[in-house]
């Protein structure tokens, strides 16, 4: 396998491939480093190897931080082990494009994962690595989607799990976590409070907190979104990606996925213009982008987009750098625009997304209206979660005809449907 070591993103100090996440020398975050010098150099053979893999993220195992390769039996049978994620649809959204005055818009619908969000990608990788490292218990600090995924993966693999969430999370996300038999802990506080608590707990327990001590491995799972988009576009890089930003990890890892494959010769061209999407009620990265700053000032979140409500985004500085270097941006939209975004996506593509997807769709609308997008561009809108997780966002946004069961009642209530 090509995975080599952990490396500090700031000072480049090297560490072994263990459950470590912070550089002891400078406190910077650790990231997985690879050595592809002995990898297949024949691009055609590399592509065939990927295409011959299972219909899930393990087809990209060569580019993921697992010592033992994909879990379970080799080849296509791997898709039957655990709760594998990925290979979600990439849909050409002509009706959405037309509405926005654009030519080519694609929607990557990552709600079509086992627990209905992109988090299954990162959790699959983190949990598989946790097992390689000998952990028996998995845990996480979550804004909701991660909670669903960690609880489900624990159940699928027979591992104990502890899930920590802000106590005021959407009911749908709480129910869709507890059902898996996890130990669910609702913390009276914000996600940032939950994250701080878990960072403290992590130091004293022999648990794999997927997004804390396993974070370097976990974060790599997001690269598979870029791999899939490129493969589904016929081994091509899109011109622009619009992606929701909470901690900034997904945003930066999607770019890293395109860049790694370009370095290996699997893709050609520039990194896409990267547009980050935040909610105004929690927009530390968008505010820093607008102000021309290199670091984010933490905020106290207040938004309906709870899955993006991280007030202290640890990958914020990297997200800012990426948006600036690629000619993209990080923009914010308000709660009404988020609801309008959910409706726009639903009514032009048939895809019902949660509030985070409303944020991305609303930012795409904003960019189009502002004239930031060249009409010839190929744009990919990344939808990270399912609308059934945040039903309150659409409650009372439409009317239902309530009638007695008679033809007369129907025709008097809905005059435009009267038969002629």
């Amino acid at each position, binding site marked *: 396998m090509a995975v080599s070591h952990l490396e500090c993103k*700031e000072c480049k100090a090297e560490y072994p491939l263990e459950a470590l*996440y*912070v*550089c*002891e*020398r*400078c*406190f*910077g*975050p650790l990231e997985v480093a690879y050595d592809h010098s002995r990898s297949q150099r024949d691009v055609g053979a590399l592509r065939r190897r990927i295409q011959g893999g299972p219909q899930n993220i393990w087809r990209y195992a060569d580019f993921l931080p697992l010592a033992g390769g994909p879990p379970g039996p080799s080849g296509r049978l791997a898709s039957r082990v655990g709760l594998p994620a990925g290979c979600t649809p990439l849909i050409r959204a002509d009706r959405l494009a037309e509405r926005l005055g654009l030519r080519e818009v694609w929607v990557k619908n990552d709600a079509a994962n086992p627990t209905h969000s992109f*988090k299954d990608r*990162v959790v699959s990788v983190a949990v598989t690595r946790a097992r390689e490292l000998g952990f028996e218990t998995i845990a*996480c*600090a*979550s*804004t909701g*989607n*991660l909670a669903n995924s960690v609880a489900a993966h624990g159940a699928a693999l027979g591992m104990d799990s502890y899930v920590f969430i802000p106590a005021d999370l959407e009911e749908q996300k709480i129910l869709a976590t507890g059902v898996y038999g996890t130990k669910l802990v609702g913390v009276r506080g914000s*996600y*940032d*409070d939950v*994250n*701080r608590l878990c*960072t*403290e707990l992590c*130091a004293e327990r022999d648990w794999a907190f997927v*997004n*804390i001590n396993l*974070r370097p491995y*976990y*974060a790599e799972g997001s690269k598979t979104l870029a791999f899939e988009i490129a493969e589904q576009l016929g081994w091509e890089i899109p011109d622009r990606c619009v992606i929701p930003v*909470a*901690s*900034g*990890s997904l945003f930066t890892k999607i770019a890293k996925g395109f860049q790694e494959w370009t370095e290996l010769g699997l893709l050609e061209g520039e990194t896409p213009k990267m547009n980050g999407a935040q909610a105004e009620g929690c927009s530390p990265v968008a505010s820093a982008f607008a102000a021309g700053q290199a*670091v984010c*000032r*933490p905020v*106290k979140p207040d938004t309906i987009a709870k899955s993006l409500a*991280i007030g*202290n*985004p*640890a*990958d914020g*500085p990297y997200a800012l750098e990426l948006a600036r270097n690629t000619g993209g941006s990080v923009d914010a939209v308000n709660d009404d625009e988020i609801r309008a975004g959910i409706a726009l996506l639903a009514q032009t593509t048939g895809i019902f997304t949660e509030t985070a997807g409303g944020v991305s769709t609303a930012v795409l609308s904003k960019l189009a209206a502002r004239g930031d997008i060249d009409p010839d561009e190929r744009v990919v809108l990344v939808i990270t979660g399912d609308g059934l997780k945040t039903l309150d966002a659409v409650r009372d946004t439409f009317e239902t005809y309530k009638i007695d069961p008679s033809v007369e009642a129907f025709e008097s209530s809905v005059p435009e449907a009267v038969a002629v």
Partner: protein
Amino acid sequence: MAVLVKIPTQLRAAADGESEALLSGATVQEVLDDLFERFGELRTRISDDDGTLRRFVNVYLAGEDIRFLDGLATPVPDGAELTILPAVAGG
């Protein structure tokens, strides 16, 4: 004025293996100075050359991020608890 400072695992090697230290100071800056006085190596690990905290260092006073208070100038009451933690991306 006694202040309890909790030291994260990643910094304990540079703090004689201690997980906490009883220090003094009227502000966060003064308490940190006292910490650096005691464990000299910690200064370069968590602060930049100009004395500001590195961008991945979070400091909490009684659970509240000091950036929501008055930063390094935040007054620290007697008996308070300061926690130093690495910033971690969430999800």
